[in-house]
């Protein structure tokens, strides 16, 4: 089912408020094989001048996943999660964020377009991430929806 671009752009995402947990950051570091002690040991982080464990570059994506149902917007657009691919991901950074910080994430759809005669639909989702009302990072995801009903 094709995505309705007007409906996608008008989607209202509830803001997500997340307090960054030290244990989650440590687990994330362990799973990706991070060996730099700054990302796993709060004492090492402080010795390097950080107030606590830093949020690593891609964990801003994970903060948005803390939403109760991060893919409900796809269901709202009639998209089957199994038909979805992550096409692109971009981050812009304005300030470091640390364990213990509380941030607010506000996602929105900023663009919708199709390729290959509608066989591929693209949703561009931009998320502003703020701490104390100051923008600390922006995350932009390009979500690709494969439409099996359109012959390529």
């Amino acid at each position, binding site marked *: 089912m094709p995505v309705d671009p007007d409906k996608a752009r008008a989607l209202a995402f509830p803001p997500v408020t997340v307090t960054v947990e030290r244990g*989650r950051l440590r*687990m*994330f570091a*362990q*799973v*990706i*094989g*991070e060996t*730099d002690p700054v*990302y796993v040991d709060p004492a090492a982080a402080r010795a390097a001048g950080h107030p606590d464990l*830093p949020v*690593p*570059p*891609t*964990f801003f*994506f*994970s*903060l948005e*996943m*803390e939403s109760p149902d*991060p*893919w409900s917007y796809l269901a709202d657009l009639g998209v089957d*999660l*199994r*038909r*979805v*691919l*992550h*096409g*692109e*991901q*971009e*981050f*812009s*950074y304005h300030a*470091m964020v640390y364990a213990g910080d509380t941030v607010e994430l506000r996602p929105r759809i900023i663009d919708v377009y199709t390729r290959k005669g509608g066989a591929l639909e693209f949703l561009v989702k931009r998320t502003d991430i703020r701490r104390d009302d100051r923008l600390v990072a922006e995350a*932009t995801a390009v979500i690709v929806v494969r439409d099996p009903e359109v012959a390529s």
Partner: protein
Amino acid sequence: MTMVDDLREGTELPPLRLPPITRTTLALFAGASGDHNPIHIDLDVARSAGLDDVFAHGMLSMAYLGRLLTGWVPQHRIRTYRVRFVAVTPVHAEPTCTGRVVSVRDGRATVALAVTLADGTTTLTGEAVIDLS
């Protein structure tokens, strides 16, 4: 950590070679990253979508590339970091992360990034802008 004064066009980052991605890695990454999409961890769901097997999260490869960057310059110097996911990463794949400085101007270095698998497949291409000031 690299001295930013030493950066010039053509500088290669030390490659980061990863061990094979196991199903355990995918299960743990789902939990750690918060990305619980079952297509990466549940064979039944993958098959119901017409796939032979689960495949790795794109964000796992982007996290590996992030390690390449933060192992090379302090994280606060990274201004932007973006990637395109150009091929899926199968289970058992062995990714290698590479980067090369493609320009240095106006106090910023642009680094071209890639993740390739042992069979030569490029799974991810990208770019990061590093603040040198």
